[in-house]
């Protein structure tokens, strides 16, 4: 009886679906679905949460979000963003995403141990996790399906090579967040490939006059310094000010980009920028989760995918400039 009762509506549904298909309005399948898949709007609307360790108001994380939002718009994804520099609070934010029953979670692993338990809970709840930016080496062990980021050591090595190329012999690596593992790794990587001597200088990143006076003090205490490597775009501009003020011959190179920095690269006051392409980190992470849900793909096959380093110098600054102008590079 039950079967019979079910068969009639089913037949009716098929007929209705055919009618709808003829009218071009099938709810599922058919040519339309295929086209939608190509255009990237097929499937149910997904909800994806990104939780980073970023402090507020940081240009870098703004670009990550722009990438993520671009992918989300294309993939029909509802994108949620939250952040807290404190590892424990970041873990709580991940828990709230699990509570919201999101379809995927994107995290940064700057403090991997703080996130260990909550990521296990995400796995238990069958929510796929993708890590970005930091923590490539811990990503797989913590159950993330993929990782998109820059290997800090490799990026540091690229910066060291650039310093070598512009002829520096004694350089300072300016660390604007003391205790940040990634910052230390960058400077260590740079020291490895840089032929000359390199020292670290710690400055307070939230207080620009302090950054400037510390770099100035360093240049004054050692006139032999002929290279400065900063780890963020705003600090590079400040380093240039210090160089001008002290009449030092130091050449400035930096990690990360923004539109003012591109102008400085074009006019030659900054020699190079090592771009880890934060836009890609946000974009690929959202895309990966979407691909996983809709097509079972894992970009990179479980190995960390590098988003950088891309080197910007006077030679290619013109092509990058329009993208930096709109805040996506």
């Amino acid at each position, binding site marked *: 009886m039950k079967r019979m009762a079910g068969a009639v509506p089913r037949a009716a549904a098929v007929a209705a679906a055919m009618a709808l298909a003829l009218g071009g309005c099938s709810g599922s399948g058919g040519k339309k679905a295929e086209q939608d898949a190509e255009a990237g709007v097929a499937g149910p609307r997904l909800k994806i949460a990104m939780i980073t360790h970023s402090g507020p108001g*940081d*240009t870098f994380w703004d670009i990550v979000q722009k990438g993520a939002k671009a992918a989300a718009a294309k993939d029909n994804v509802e994108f949620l963003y939250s952040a807290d520099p404190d590892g424990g609070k970041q873990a709580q934010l991940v828990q709230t995403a699990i509570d919201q029953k999101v379809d995927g979670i994107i995290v940064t692993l700057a403090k991997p141990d703080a996130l260990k338990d909550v990521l296990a809970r995400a796995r238990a709840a069958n929510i796929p996790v993708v890590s970005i930016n930091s923590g490539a080496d811990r990503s797989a062990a913590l159950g993330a399906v993929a990782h998109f980021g820059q290997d800090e050591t490799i990026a540091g090595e690229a910066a060291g090579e650039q310093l070598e190329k512009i002829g520096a012999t004694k350089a300072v690596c300016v660390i604007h967040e003391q205790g940040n593992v990634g910052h230390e790794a960058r400077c260590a990587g740079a020291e490895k490939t840089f032929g000359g001597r390199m020292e670290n200088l710690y400055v307070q990143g939230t207080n620009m*006059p302090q950054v400037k006076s510390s770099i100035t003090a360093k240049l*004054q*205490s050692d006139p032999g310094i002929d290279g400065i490597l900063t780890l963020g775009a705003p600090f590079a501009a400040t380093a240039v000010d210090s160089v001008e003020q002290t009449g030092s011959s130091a050449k400035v190179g930096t990690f990360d980009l923004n539109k003012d920095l591109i102008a400085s690269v074009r006019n030659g006051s900054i020699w190079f920028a090592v771009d880890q392409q934060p836009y890609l980190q946000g974009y690929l992470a959202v895309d990966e989760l979407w691909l996983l849900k809709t097509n079972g793909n894992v970009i990179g096959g479980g190995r960390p995918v590098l988003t950088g380093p891309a080197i910007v110098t006077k030679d290619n600054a013109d092509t990058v400039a329009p993208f930096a102008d709109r805040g996506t590079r």
Partner: protein
Amino acid sequence: MSQAVLDVAADERLAGRSPLRRLAGRPEVGALLGAAALFVFFALVADSFLQAASLSTVLYASSTFGIMAVSVALLMIGGEFDLSAGVMVTTAALLSAMLSYQLTLNVWAGVAISLALTLGLGLLNGVLYVRTRLPSFIVTLATFFMLAGANLGVTKLVTGNVATDSVRDMDGFASARAVFAADLDVGGVQVNVTVLWWLLFTAVATWILLRTRAGNWIFACGGNPQAARAVGVPVDRVRIALFMGVAFTAWFSGMHLLFAYGTVQSGEGVGNEFSYIICAVIGGCLLTGGYGSAIGAAIGAFIFGMTNKGIVYAEWDPDWFKFFLGAMLLLATVVNLVVRRRAELSR
């Protein structure tokens, strides 16, 4: 008659004190000794510390703290705190940058509107404090969070990014830079104009504290507000004015930030409020109010700046940077304390 004379002589309040002892009773003397000790110390351990250019850098670092420490010290003498002082600097800079850029105004117009709005924020802190009777710690903690959030939210809303657009190429930038961030050539050494402003602000604040009725009111408010009110001191108005004083120097510091660096990142400034309070405390201001001086705050800022930069000149292992900073500050404050206690005992 002779008995009366004896009584007067025995009254310690009327006993004459030697000029040296009177000096030792001043709040800033301990800090001054601490500063001198640190100066000699760094001169000995850091080869490049005594160069004129290095001292100029130390003074610049001190001045950026010192300008804020002046008003923060006055507020502390008046018995209150302002935890929003650090982010308010960023707020003032953001306001000025965005108003100038978005409305394509001469930057001086942005500077002026920013002054009005920032003073408004000080007024808000003051009025909220006076009306709610909550501790200023709570009131300004609330405005600290609101400003930090608004700095980010409004900037992103207006510019689409979290940093402001550069105003370097706009009308008035050069003259504004000359006022707020010029490098002056003093005998071949570049000295930032903030050093002069710092000295000026300190002098004005000292004059207010020691030579005007408002100065007496400030001490009275911090020492014993009930008694002050009883003798007719307009306690609420004094405190609102003190909060606006902090807002004024926050505006000034914000303008320095903007015109020295061209753009402002909206997340900056958090944490600096404690540096300002530290400067005032090293300089002899009591956390409980009613005692302290503007000159002391200036010396405190000098100690803070000198320690900050001296560690770089001394080329110490940077991993220990914060440890050294803490140890130096402790040392300076202890010297300060010992001197003051001795002065009080020997009265």
